């Protein structure tokens, strides 16, 4: 599952790190005991599940502040527990729904970007300029 996720993320040009925990994020001044946190440059968020078919993370949005925090982070780290990886978007969605009943789920698979001017890709439009997936493999 992890290999497949990394392979697909590479196709989309998104960085993936396999980690044992996300404690290193504390060094950016982020509080990793929370569900999400951000400061001006960096943010992180814990995903409910992930889909390998598209290298996507599923995130629940219970309130508007969480959405704001995601959009305002220049670099956004998204942690996904290895055990929550599923093959398809659909399976990942149902797992997320089992874990929480929130009405709004956001699938993130890459940074905010546009190719609206002559198909030239520019990252960081109305959301994060960079996404890093942290696949948490506790071993």
């Amino acid at each position, binding site marked *: 599952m992890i290999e497949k996720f990394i392979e*697909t993320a590479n*196709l*989309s040009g998104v960085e993936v790190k396999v980690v044992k925990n996300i404690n290193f994020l504390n060094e950016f001044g982020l509080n990793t005991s929370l569900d999400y946190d951000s400061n001006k440059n960096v943010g992180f968020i814990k995903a409910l599940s992930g889909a390998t*078919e*598209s*290298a*996507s993370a599923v995130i629940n*949005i219970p*309130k*508007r502040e969480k*959405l*704001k925090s*995601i*959009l305002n982070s220049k670099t956004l780290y998204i942690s996904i527990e290895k055990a929550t990886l599923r093959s*398809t*978007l*659909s399976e990942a*969605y*149902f797992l997320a729904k089992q874990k929480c009943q929130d*009405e*709004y*789920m*956001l*699938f*993130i*698979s*890459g*940074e*905010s*970007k*546009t*190719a*609206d*001017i*002559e*198909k*030239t890709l*520019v990252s960081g*439009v*109305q*959301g*994060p300029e960079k*996404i890093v997936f942290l696949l948490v493999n506790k071993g």
Partner: protein
Amino acid sequence: MKKTEEEFCNDQFLQNALNRAEKSYFEKRRKLEKVFDFEKFKDEIRDIKEKNIKSLEENIVFLLNNLRSRGFEVFFAKYSDEALTYFYNILTKKGIKKVVKSKSLTTEEINLNSFLEKNNITPVETDLGEWLVQLNNEKATHMTAPAIHMSKEKILNFLNEKFNANLKLDIKEMVDFCKNEINKEFDNTNCGIFGANVVTRDGTFFIVSNEGNIQHVLNHDINICIVGIDKIVENVDDAFKIVSFLPKNATGQVITSWIDVFTKPPGNEFFVILLDNNRSKIAREEKFDKVLNCIKCGACQMACPVYTTVGGQLFRGETYAGPIGVLLSYMDNYKLMNELSFLCTGCMACDKVCSSRIPIQSLILEIKSKYERNNIIKKFAIKSMKNYRLLRALISLASPYFKDGIKMRRFKFLRDEFGLSFRTLPAINKVSFDTVKTKSSKIGLFAGCSTNIFYDDVGKDLVRLSNFLNIDIEIINQSSCCGAAALYNGLKVEAINQAQKTIKDIERFEKILFLDPHCAHMVQRDYSELFGIDFSNRVADAGYYFVELLKNRKYKFIPLNKVVTYHHPCHLSRGMNQALQIEDFIKEKEKKFSELNEKDRCCGFAGTYSIMHKHISNKFVQRKIDNIIKSNSEVVITSCPGCIMQISGALDVMNAQNISVIHFVSYLKNILGA
């Protein structure tokens, strides 16, 4: 004043912008096609859409009930004016003077922006491309890339002018500037308007996006969503399949950066408008119901040579542009359907890429027959093809005057009018080729009008080849044209007449060979659609037939030993899937084979198209010739007399005598020494 076809073809900024977009799209798409099975995806999407359009009424009822039971305000708008009134009522009731919008084709369809502006409510588009076209008072010209027609130079000029800025020609700098301007607007309203890509009938909405503007739009107190009823699917699995394939086919992306999936957006109030606007009527039409299978990926636009030549400002209806634009404009009762549909050359490049396998080209032919537009001369010419006795007499009469080809070097007006300024036409045969007497056989050759009128040398080569290979092939003495010319010019009744005569000529043969893939494809596909007669096992392109036959026989071939390339005719490659095998055969024989870039891109002949739309046709053939020159070829082989006529005619005008264009059958005859 409206820009003309010629002006669009000569607009260098537009040409650059479209070329870069097309190139980038296909590069990305090709990479992805190596990893994902696009054909399997297309089958799945077609099946999902067909299933759901069949249950459209049931889906609507379910969705309405589900949303209402959850306490949302839902409105079913039969027509666009009802939807607009509903928007107006909500916005005025809430005292809203400005709204932010995310990109929504459905709001474009109902002309929401101009309606709101007329009613003193300011709509602000927040998708970068949409914002650019809105700012420049234009319409979006592509489904997923609204500003595709705008070159970076043009964008820079108007940004500097409008905002009194001093930006440089640097796309990153321009994007940063635009995003900051857009960003200012999110806090100026409490209402966000958006569409949805899919909605399940239990009321789960799916929106795909990349920029992050949609999440800002959703993050408002009042959320209004408008969605066409064709977007409703039975369940979440169906929805995920669609949003998973859509970006792959639309932009060559594995997936979009964001997919919003919600049963209620984050705002406090949620209003939903379900738009019909002729969708339920179309869903009941046997052929055109397939239009509703569209998932609005815009791939057909990127694949269409007409669209990528003149862009979506010319090749468009009221709202939508390109191939799908023709179909959706028909659904929308667009006034100028004849002009729009006749811009299509019939090349089927759209069919090949469509996410849900909509037979776009065939539906456009059907539309052409409803909005036929032909002048008297053209009608006479097409109708005369039904009476081959008359046609033969005309050939004999005209032949002495055009023994050196049709060049019209002296009469400028006629030359321009008939598209002879960019391409000459070949000499007319002395007699119609199909009068050649041959032994009776179970294998027949339907030579077709182009061979009968212009290319008897190709016909004669086939006879020599069959004699050499000891195969009896009977030249069919035609009573009529096969009907393709009539059908492609919207004269369906005439096409049926001609086809009925042709069926009598061909039905006794076990195998029917063709020198012109237009005729072969007409008999194979359209006869089946028109009369339910399945000729598919009996129809073959003559070249393909020989290639298959030679697999089991041993002959000595003497290759041309020149730089050789192969151009794939539209109807042979996409219509009959028989072009690749021919190319492989040539590759095997010719050491100096040089593969043609864009080998299956239409050459722009398409019968009378090259006269009616001479500027577009000229652009097509110039691009083909550019590719031929880049391949360094001395000989261009192809399998269609129409393509030979177009390419060699254009080379003739350019005086490029070092490149010859020949039919594959003639090539085969030559290398076999027949």
